[in-house]
């Protein structure tokens, strides 16, 4: 008898994180299979970015368990780091280096062949501006470079915090094959546009003051619940 024993891409059990007296996350439990998309919804300060930073192994949880691809964090973070791509509020690019120099630096850190840099620059249509220091680029261009940086090492899990921020519709379409469903990656995404996030999601996690108020399929999370969450 053949049993599919592949662990979930993400498994959270009773996850909690505090900043001093303030609860940033509490009692978060869910499992996300490989290739699926999790939309994390909630108002500003609900704990969305904290969750993404914990999943990226940049923050330690204070309680509960986190496992990515079956590897517990933070203990086995070293094993899974190369499989994660984080696109957060900060582009993680040095302002005084050029776009190409930044991507080459990341390629070397991730031991990716340098040809891949040209590939991702071309994918976000930044080849012509790649020789300019990042500080001279518009926010939209920096965001396109940040997308290129996040997918440079061909991650299997994309952690996307407002990934289309600063992008005009054409640029958003441009990065779609890299960070959208077509990328084939497991994705965790937050968005200020709940309807768009729900349209992309297989699973929804709604947070209010760090606590989950809904975990389930997007079809069950109707307009009333969206209004209630953001009221």
């Amino acid at each position: 008898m053949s049993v599919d024993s592949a662990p979930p891409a993400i498994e959270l059990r009773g996850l909690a994180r505090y900043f001093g007296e303030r609860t940033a996350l509490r009692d978060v439990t869910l499992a996300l299979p490989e290739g699926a998309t999790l939309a994390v919804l909630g108002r500003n300060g609900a704990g969305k970015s904290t969750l993404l930073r914990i999943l990226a192994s940049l923050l330690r949880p204070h309680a509960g368990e986190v496992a990515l691809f079956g590897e517990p964090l933070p203990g086995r973070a070293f094993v899974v780091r190369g499989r994660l791509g984080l696109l957060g509020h900060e582009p993680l690019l040095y302002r005084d280096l050029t776009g190409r120099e930044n991507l080459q630096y990341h390629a070397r850190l991730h031991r990716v062949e340098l040809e891949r840099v040209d590939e991702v620059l071309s994918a976000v249509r930044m080849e012509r501006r790649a020789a300019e220091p990042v500080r001279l680029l518009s926010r939209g261009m920096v965001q396109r470079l940040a997308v290129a940086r996040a997918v440079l090492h061909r991650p299997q899990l994309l952690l996307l915090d407002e990934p289309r921020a600063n992008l005009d519709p054409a640029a958003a379409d441009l990065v779609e094959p890299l960070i959208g469903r077509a990328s084939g990656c497991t994705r965790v995404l937050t968005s200020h546009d709940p309807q768009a996030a729900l349209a992309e999601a297989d699973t929804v996690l709604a947070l209010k003051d760090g606590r989950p108020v809904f975990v389930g399929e997007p079809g069950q999370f109707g307009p009333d619940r969206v209004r209630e969450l953001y009221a």
Partner: protein
Amino acid sequence: MRTAMVVLRKDLRLELRTWETLPAMVLFALVTFVIFHFGLNRATISGQLAAGVLTVTLLFAAMLGVNRLFVAEREQGGFDAFLLAPVDRTTMLVAKSSALFLFLCVLEVVAVPAFALFLLGPSLGPALPGLILVLVLANLGLAVIGTLVSAIAVHTRARDLIGPLLGLPLLVPALIATARAAGPLLAAAHASSAPPGKWLLILALYDVVFGLLAYAVFDFLLED
């Protein structure tokens, strides 16, 4: 080592692009020599006094470099980018210590001849080989402690204050050993062309102990 070289190359490229650290260190040292020149009201100095002035000036100039060592990582997301890569975190210690060591060497290439010109009585020539040995050992300790302190300070709001407050007390043994090792080299009658072995040994021991300590704790300093 390969990753450390990648980070070091990036740091050197950033410095060559911005010139935010080295010129400040060099200018600080030069201005301090001028201040000592007038403050001591002496045309020339030698021996232990000269060694003390040189060592203290280099130490304070080094603190400027220490304070800026992790600023780009903190302000431009370099820490997160590094932590997301599947690399050994202590390579950051090696890279940053090497960058600071190189900055100190460049500082001394300018500052030591300037010191000889502005303040030093005896000729620098005969003392130079011994002085280079002393300064290389001092730089090693400064680079390791400086990196450790900078990694702690950069996470605080008052990083410009925390760096010197933590770093200077830790560097007192190195300061004493450097000044005592350099003193005889800078004496008027060139009492010795070789630095005292005892102080060199103390400097080397200091470097080894703090190098191991930094290696042991650096990983934790990068944690949230």
